[in-house]
């Protein structure tokens, strides 16, 4: 029948027209969606499946139910890894924020050459952990001829063990991370400082407020969204710390620098307990997910992508 025929051609015509109109969507989005499914969606689902398996990659996978999930509660080292990671965050987050804010305030003074200083403070951010760790290893050698020890001796402080001391190693690693990332914290704060209207400062100065008062009554509170944002970002980063623990201390001494990701790596790729390592990955995920929720809850509406 002609009408049917007519609608048929118009359908295929519409299909072609529709394809032409959206050609770029089909040509590029569909392959990327397939890529997304293979390299992200599938592994995410697969990782949950692995947590129920005993799997060492060499042998066959064996279904063990919730055993891996139960094991973690009685695994002292897992708890120690979580504790170490939390401790690391405590050593790391506040100093990184304080130093980042201080640097941002300094370069925001309109000094000549502030772009150069910004570059210098930012340089470690783009340098690999491997390079910085190589230097740090020699700076913090726990022997008399370690460079930092020589400096300490010259002011009368005795030789420290640093990376070979279970009380100090984690602090040295935190120091390394502070050096590595405070430049990016500085940039967030710098962007925040630039968005504070100059009139506020002028008004305060007319009222006779001094620098200190201006900082605590105007600058600091107006940066509240940035404080919160930076706190979340740095804590998410600190829970994923791995490189320096792997390079400088291999988790030691006495497991004092075994962080969650280091322990995950060790369980998965040294002990070949892939199922158990996947549970550790989920522990990390739950922690970071929790942090992200806090971020969304208290900060989501205020994120301002300029």
């Amino acid at each position, binding site marked *: 029948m002609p009408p049917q025929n007519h609608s048929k051609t118009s359908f295929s015509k519409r299909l072609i027209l529709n394809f032409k109109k959206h050609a*770029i*969507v089909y040509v*590029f*989005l569909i392959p*990327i969606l397939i*890529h*997304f499914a293979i390299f*992200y969606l599938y*592994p*995410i689902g*697969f*990782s949950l499946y692995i947590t129920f398996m005993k*799997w060492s*990659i060499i042998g066959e996978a064996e279904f063990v139910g919730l055993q891996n999930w139960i094991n973690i509660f009685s695994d002292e080292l897992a708890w120690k890894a979580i504790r170490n990671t939390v401790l690391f965050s405590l050593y790391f987050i506040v100093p990184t924020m304080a130093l980042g804010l201080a640097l941002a305030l*300094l370069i*925001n*003074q*309109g*000094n000549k050459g502030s772009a150069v*200083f*910004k*570059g*210098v403070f*930012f*340089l*470690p*951010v*783009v*340098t*690999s952990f*491997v*390079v910085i760790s*190589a*230097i740090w*290893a*020699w*700076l913090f050698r726990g022997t*008399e*001829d370690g*460079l930092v020890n*020589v400096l300490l001796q010259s002011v009368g402080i005795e030789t420290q063990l640093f990376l070979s001391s279970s009380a100090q190693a984690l602090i040295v690693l935190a120091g390394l991370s502070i*050096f590595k990332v405070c430049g*990016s914290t500085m*940039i*967030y704060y710098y962007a925040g400082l630039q968005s504070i209207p100059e009139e506020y*400062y002028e008004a305060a100065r007319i009222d006779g407020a001094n620098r200190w008062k201006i900082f605590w009554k105007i600058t600091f509170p107006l940066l509240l969204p940035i404080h919160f944002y930076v706190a979340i*970002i740095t804590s998410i*980063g600190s829970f994923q710390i*791995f490189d320096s623990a*792997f390079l400088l201390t291999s988790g030691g001494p006495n497991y004092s620098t075994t962080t969650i*990701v280091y322990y*995950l*790596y060790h369980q*998965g790729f040294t002990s070949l307990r*892939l199922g158990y390592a*996947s549970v550790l*990955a989920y522990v990390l*995920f739950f922690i970071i997910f929790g942090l992200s929720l806090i971020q969304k809850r208290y900060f989501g509406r205020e*994120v301002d992508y*300029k």
Partner: protein
Amino acid sequence: MQKSARWTYIPLVGIALCFIIPFLIMVFGSLLKMKIPTGNPLLWFSEEVTLDNFAYILKNADFIKWIFNSTVITVIPVFAQMFFAAVLGYIFAKKEFPFKNLIFWAMMAVIMLPSQLLIIPRYIMFSEFGWINTYLPLIVPEIWGILGVFFVKQYMQTLPKDLEEAARIDGAGDFTIFFKIMLPLSKPVIATVGTFAFISNWNDLLTPLIFTTSQDMYPVTVGLASLLTKEGNFGVEMAGSLLSFIPTFLIFLFFQRYFVKGIALSGLK
């Protein structure tokens, strides 16, 4: 704030020195003929200056191979990421199609999960694919990233609609509009995406540590890490560090303003 507060130069210079000294130690360390640095830095000035450390490390054929490997697993993803960020950014910013927002936010959510969650399933997958000790696991998953797409999308949304409409009236299709109008206008944001991709791929340690087990497949991060554990020679380690640092440093010098803008924009790292 007050313009040009002179006193701030004192802390600025002081802190800047603390930041530069580790890098200076790397440069001097690589040039001095000593296996273990003498504790007293003043003694360094009496040390012999030499290029032996570089000669040693370059004669060690693996090191050149490591740099080459790093280049392969960095350059290909960088260009792929720039391209896909541009085209997907355009698609999500300017095109209408079913489930657009759902797809975009699903991608955002999944890729923002901690990457450690992907390592073990991907290790099992790639073992079965026979990809271990090839470039593939370090390149194929890295050909696009949602953050770059997000950047470009945000940027293109601010471009006026008139540009596109005028071109459409002249009979231009999506591809013409993308390549002739959107792409040239988005150069700065695409450069941001590229610089970020370069630094993160060149510096990555954990992923290649897992997916490469043979020495001649190491990128320079893993190679250098292996050098650190076995060499015990300060000069050689610093020479290796310096050589692996130079590409990062050059990219940093050329694209510094993009980094700073990108960091402030992205909230990453």
